[in-house]
């Protein structure tokens, strides 16, 4: 379970333990290889029967459709001419315009729908980048050990000393373009050490297991051991953190945009919409309410999914 | 594991309590566990009794229900998932299953105490051994912190831990395995209980240390005239210290006997199998006997005698009728005190 935005060095799903040097992930990836096959099928079985998984999966599917084809849900487009009419400024929700209008007289419903795409893109792009970089470096550090491991580990510790929002503030101010891809890059720069730490911990936890020793004794090469024995057992914790992080990054994007350093106008973002409407919150709460609702439900869905996946992959925690 | 010393003296049987009521009597005890996979019947009508100064050894493989019975006596079963649908546990003639939680708590530790198998995990890692020993006196006897510490040192001396006064503030991980088990024994003895239940007290120890710990336990038992229930799967441990034995299989007692009677003439094929699978010096070079098959799954025990799929003597009746604990007699019908066997063919087994 992550902890979002306003705090904490990169969303800390696993609290940094003071003794991480000696293989942090002591509660991760303990599964033995002969259990791997049944672990995955058990997990699939558990997932399908878990109502939390089903509900979150349905919500996420819906959001993906929304992001891919917003035109299916609204006839208007926020990019068309005359979309915003100042005469409609801050009108309350009505039967024609369900979510009402914002200060500039733009339809809140259409904007909220269209903002889904940006949130999902940031979430997925950031997750892909952090997972690739973090797990690759984490695996190398865990398998190679030695000075390379020390250097990489110390380097990531620097990032943990830096609160996410604070780092975001600085890095986003350097890039300054305010489009979706740069925001994802900013978050990825700050987020990869977390995946690194988990991957490294999981690799270390598995590296010294008896079955790896046995494989070594049988003369298997390092590369083969890494691919066949260590990696499959280290994947589970990374999958869990990846799923949860999707929600965390979406939330972080909204927070950066809220502060005016993430996605910027004319691009649309829930965080930006909330920020723009904040000053009139007490008078016209609808302008804040609807984007907030979409944002919260999206984040909730991904975190629930991550929770369900973790429960399925690590039954010990149930 | 251990070679049985057949020349050991038969300990004189000790008399029951002065009023004739045994210290502890378990009657028709049933324990079930309700799990996702179904109901596991861990204990199916166990009867046994222990008197003051007497040692009862409960013998069985893991999953035979021997530990669950002990936990039911202690009142430390997790309920749920466990339930006790039937049975009585009489302590000084009073049914503990009918007592309130508070009444039972007062008995636990002070009048019935338990020694667990793995002392390292059974002792709290973050509290000093002195604190954990002294806690008994602080909770049950309302002693002050200082008095409790003095008592703790006394106890550690008693179980022969060297430099007790200096080590009273040490933590469990700073002691060796044998010393840790001595601390467990000291904790159980602290309030001089009437009955001690020792659940595999020496299994986790080195063979050389095993004997020392068992000897200590037996000495202390004699000194305080306590009842002792010794749960084990190790026949060697039993021979030297026990007065009588109850062999358990799949939640039932399959044979009871005074200790040396059992070794000489087992009356149940399962007991015979256990005895035959002990390595013996006089059979060096021969293949070691092993009971074939696996212990039954408790959610679906086989019909009839639970041992029938593994039994070399099994007949049709064994697959349909559950044998009760028959009294075992001599070939001529002469009484054999304290002997019983839950086998349809006990006669053939003991005399055949």
């Amino acid at each position, binding site marked *: 379970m992550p902890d979002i935005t306003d705090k904490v060095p990169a969303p800390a799903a696993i609290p940094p333990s003071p003794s991480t040097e000696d293989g942090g992930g002591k509660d991760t990836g303990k599964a033995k290889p002969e259990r791997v096959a049944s672990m995955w099928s058990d997990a699939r079985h558990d997932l399908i029967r878990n109502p939390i998984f089903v509900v979150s999966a349905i919500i996420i599917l819906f959001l993906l459709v929304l992001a891919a084809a917003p035109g299916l849900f609204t006839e208007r487009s926020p990019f068309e001419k005359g979309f915003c009419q100042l005469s409609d400024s801050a009108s309350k929700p009505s039967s024609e315009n369900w979510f009402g209008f914002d200060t500039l007289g733009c339809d809140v419903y259409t904007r909220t729908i269209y903002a889904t795409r940006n949130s999902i893109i940031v979430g997925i792009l950031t997750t892909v980048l952090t997972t690739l970089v973090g797990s690759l470096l984490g695996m190398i550090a865990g398998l190679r050990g030695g000075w390379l491991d020390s250097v990489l580990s110390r380097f990531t510790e620097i990032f943990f000393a830096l*609160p996410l929002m604070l780092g975001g503030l600085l890095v986003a101010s350097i890039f300054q373009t305010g489009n979706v891809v740069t925001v994802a890059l900013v978050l990825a720069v700050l987020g990869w050490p977390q995946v690194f730490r988990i991957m490294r911990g999981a690799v270390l936890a598995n590296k010294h297991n008896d079955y790896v020793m046995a494989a070594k004794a049988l003369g298997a090469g390092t590369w083969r051991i890494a691919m066949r024995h260590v990696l499959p057992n280290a994947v589970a914790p990374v999958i869990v953190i990846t799923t949860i992080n999707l929600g965390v990054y979406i939330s972080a994007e909204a*927070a950066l945009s809220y*502060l005016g350093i993430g996605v910027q106008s004319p691009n649309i973002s829930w965080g930006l919409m909330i920020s723009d409407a904040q000053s009139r919150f007490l008078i016209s709460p609808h302008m804040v309410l609807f984007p*907030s609702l979409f944002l919260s439900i999206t984040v909730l869905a991904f975190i629930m999914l991550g929770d369900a996946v973790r429960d399925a992959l690590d039954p010990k925690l149930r | 594991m251990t070679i049985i010393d057949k020349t050991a003296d038969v300990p004189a049987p000790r008399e029951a309590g002065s009023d004739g009521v045994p210290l502890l009597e378990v009657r028709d005890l049933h324990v079930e566990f309700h799990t996702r996979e179904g109901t596991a019947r861990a204990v199916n009508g166990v009867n046994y009794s222990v008197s003051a100064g007497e040692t009862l050894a409960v013998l069985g493989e893991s999953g035979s229900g021997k530990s669950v019975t002990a936990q039911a006596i202690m009142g430390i079963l997790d309920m749920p998932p466990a339930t006790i649908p039937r049975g009585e546990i009489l302590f000084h003639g009073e049914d503990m299953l009918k007592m309130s939680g508070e009444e039972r708590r007062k008995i636990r530790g002070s009048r019935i105490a338990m020694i667990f198998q793995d002392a390292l*995990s059974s002792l709290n890692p973050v509290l000093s051994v002195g604190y954990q020993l002294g806690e008994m006196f602080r909770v049950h006897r309302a002693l002050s912190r200082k008095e409790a510490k003095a008592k703790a040192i006394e106890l550690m001396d008693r179980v022969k831990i060297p430099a007790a006064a200096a080590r009273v503030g040490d*933590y469990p991980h700073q002691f060796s395995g044998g010393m840790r088990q001595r601390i467990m024994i000291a904790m159980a003895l602290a309030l001089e209980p009437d009955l001690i239940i020792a659940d595999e007290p020496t299994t986790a120890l080195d063979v050389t240390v095993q004997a020392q710990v068992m000897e200590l336990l037996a000495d202390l038992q004699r000194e305080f005239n306590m009842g002792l229930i010794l749960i084990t799967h190790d026949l060697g441990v039993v021979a030297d210290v026990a007065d009588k034995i109850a062999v358990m299989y799949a939640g039932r007692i399959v044979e009871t006997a005074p200790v040396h009677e059992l070794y000489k003439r087992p009356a149940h094929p399962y007991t015979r199998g256990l005895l035959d699978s002990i390595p013996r010096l006089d059979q060096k070079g021969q293949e070691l006997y092993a009971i074939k098959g696996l212990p039954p799954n408790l959610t679906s025990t086989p019909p009839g005698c639970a041992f029938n799929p593994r039994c070399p003597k099994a007949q049709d009746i064994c697959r349909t009728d559950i044998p009760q604990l028959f009294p075992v007699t001599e070939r001529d019908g002469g009484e054999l005190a304290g002997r019983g066997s839950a086998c349809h063919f006990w006669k053939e087994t003991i005399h055949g």
Partner: protein
Amino acid sequence: MGRYLIRRLVQAIPVLLGATFLIFCLVFALPGDPIQMLAGEKRADPNIAAILREQYHLNDPLYQQYLHYMGGVLTGDFGETYTGRAVADIMSERFPVTVQLALIAFAVEAVIGVAAGVSAALGRGKFLDNIVLISTLLLVSVPVFVLGSIAQLTLGVQWDLLPISYDENDPMSLLLPGIVLAAASMAYITRLTRTSMMETLRADYVRTAIAKGLSRRRVIVRHALRNALIPIVTFLGADLGALMGGAIITERLFNIPGVGGQLAQSVYLREQPVVIGIVTCLILIYIAANLIVDLLYAVLDPRIRYA
């Protein structure tokens, strides 16, 4: 024990140096010329600009500026802004408010989080446990600026329970922001406590404690919780630093003149010395908090103390 602490201290040094150097690079990579920012709309006088550049060592290579700066920090000198104000002054004005806010949040998350986690673990699978699971999910999912708005609207305006914006003379005015700031961590601590407690309740030594005839309360508090607290303390310590540095949104939402607001403003105005000063302090706090955790860790777990 002593060696353990010294080792942790030595390990903190590269993190401190690395983090401050990273910040140094980031701050100087910010686009825009700080001297030009001073002049505002007008073009800065090149002569004056050159003098200022010399005065603030802006012409030196970055690593020299860094060494110069860190040398100052060691003697307690955090430098001054380009308008000549001591950075230490600005910080001593802003930090007390943020520290107060962070401590309130810390107390809220520690007390409520642990209590809720323990009760959930004890009533495992029951009504209360489910309530706790669902509410913690909600608390982590709702972003802090949304949560803050909701809290202001309900607790502040509709029910009029707590003040909704900061007032220097009213300590109660930090309560609502403190709760909002704490919310996500509180939910995390609740879950961590629940898991950790459930694990320890299954431990053999808890069974022993019950077999000793101890009261349920004593078994739970002395024997289970004492062990379950070890991972929780770790998280709490790391979080204390994060609470101080991460309150940017909360401070903005409740108009609190703390470090977060100052930082956002200074980044915008390219006041490099202020940004570096504040971030250096925050990193120091983070490292100090982690050292305290290491200490507490050793106090709570004798296996570490005597290792």
